[in-house]
Every structure is written in structure tokens, then in C-alpha cells.
């Protein structure tokens, strides 16, 4: 068996980082469930979606290694989300301004 050293592909995050990220994800999960039961009006949606975005960024950055891999992949990943944002934003723009 070869010695434990990294030879190809992006440098993997350390075991500690992996576990810290998992802890953060589970913490966020608790937070999102908790806040859901507090009536904050429209802020509930913001909290829910905001926490989901934070979790997704954690997974993308560390587990999917966007941090250490080629910047090109960051662009590709962002473009997927950006196009989705366009779809939602412009069709919502119609729905919200339609005469009732």
C-alpha cells in the first residue's frame, strides 16, 4: 500500500474540516426547524431559504470541493443557479404585477 499522501485531483479537505462542516450542517438543520416554529411573519421564509442556501454553499464549497478545484467549475455551478433565478424572477414578475 502506498503511503498516505495526496497525489492527484484537488487536495481533499482534512478529516476535521469534513466533520466540522457536518456539524455545521446539522446545526443549521436544527436552527431551521427551530425557527420554523417561531412566528416571524415573512421573515420565516427568508430564514428557511437563507439557511438552505448557507447549507448548500457549505456542501458545494467543501464536500464538492469547489474551493480547491478549478475555478471553471465554480462558474458552471453558479450558472445553473443563476439561470434558475432568471426563470423564477421573470415569471414571478409577471404573476405579481398581473391585474388581480
Amino acid at each position, binding site marked *: 500500500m502506498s503511503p*498516505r499522501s495526496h497525489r492527484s485531483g484537488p487536495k481533499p479537505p482534512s478529516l476535521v474540516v469534513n466533520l466540522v462542516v457536518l456539524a455545521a450542517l446539522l446545526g443549521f438543520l436544527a436552527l*431551521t*426547524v427551530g425557527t420554523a*416554529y417561531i412566528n416571524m411573519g415573512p421573515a420565516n421564509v427568508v430564514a428557511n431559504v437563507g439557511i*438552505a442556501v448557507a447549507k448548500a454553499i457549505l456542501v458545494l464549497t467543501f464536500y464538492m470541493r469547489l474551493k480547491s478545484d478549478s475555478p471553471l467549475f465554480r462558474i458552471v455551478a453558479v450558472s*445553473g443557479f443563476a439561470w*434558475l433565478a432568471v426563470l423564477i424572477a421573470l415569471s414571478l414578475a409577471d404573476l405579481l404585477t398581473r391585474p388581480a
Partner: protein
Amino acid sequence: MSTTPTAVQFDDAVQQREAATLGMWTFISTEILFFGVLFAAYTLCRTRFPEAFAEGSRHTDVLLGTAETAVLLISSCLVAVAVREVQLGGQRIATWLIAATAALGVCFLTMHGFEYVSEYHEGLVPAIRYTQSGPSAGQMEIFFCLYYFITGFHGLHVTIGVIVLLVMARRTHRGDFDQDYHTPLEMSALYWHLVDIVWIFVFPLIYLIGRSG
């Protein structure tokens, strides 16, 4: 050490890995839009019927939902560590980690199966058994349509993911991957993380709205 030949169209292994990873990321972008349509539909329908969506959400099982989320998050961590292990030469541990990831995937599917069953008994399944009445039953049906479409499509992805992971566990066990070559495992892990990310958004949007009201 295994020597996997570079495919004929590539110059070297670096180029091959770069191509495969870029292909995977492009595919992930595509998947984001596949799910994205459903999320867009969800957003627009919820904008029209906020009350019914909140009520529909209250019919879902938040406990199981939370457990499912936790399971997926943990599985994501496991498969990330598995890739790391292979990169560092620890195929044996990696095999077990990948198998455990697949097991957690099965666990997720089972829990979701329980949810579907209890929803069936409650009469919440549009077109099959929908027995809700009351003021917002019709609009809640739209919520449940989207619920089944999103979770069903996601479940399909989980199922494919489990199969892929099992194949990867076997190949890791067989010694197909080492410090130099492990692209298929890396790609499978990326796919599994994508499945996780989708669920990260599904969970609050399906299970958590209208809980405080």
C-alpha cells in the same frame, strides 16, 4: 497499483480527469434546472395560494422529514471522506464508507416510503386517494401534486445514487481506484452531493412552511 489506460481521445490522465469533472459539473447544472422547474412551479403556485400551501405543509411529517435530512447530510459527509480516503490510499476504509453511504440512502428511501404510506392512509395522494375536503382542499391538492413530483423525482435520483454507490463500493473493494485514478468515484460523490443539495431546499419548502401559524 492499477493502471487504467487513458481513453484514446485524451492526451493524458490530467486532461481526462478535467474533462470528466467538467462534464459532471455541466450535468449538475442541468440537474439544477431539472429540479429548478419544479421549484419555480412551487414558488409561483405558493405565491398564489400561500394559505393552502401552509396547510398542506402541516400535513407532512416534520419529524421524519428532519430525520431524512440528517441522514442525507451525514451520508454526504461519509462519501466526501470516502473520496478523501481513496485519494490518500485508504481503499479499505473507503469501501466501508461508500457502503455506509449507500445504506443511509436506502434508509432515506425507507423513511420516505413510510411517509408515503401514511399519506395514502390520510388520503393526501392526488389522483390516487385524495379525500380532503374543506375550504382549501383543491388548492392543497396542487401543493401535494408538487410534493409528489418533487419528492418522487428526488427519490428517483436517490435510487440511482444508491445503485451507483454500490457499484463504486464494489470497484473500490476490487482495487480499481488508487491515489492516481479515482475519477468515477469522485463523479459519483459529486452526484450524491447534488442529491443532498436538492433535499436541502426541498426540506424547508415542503415541511416547514406554516408551522408557526
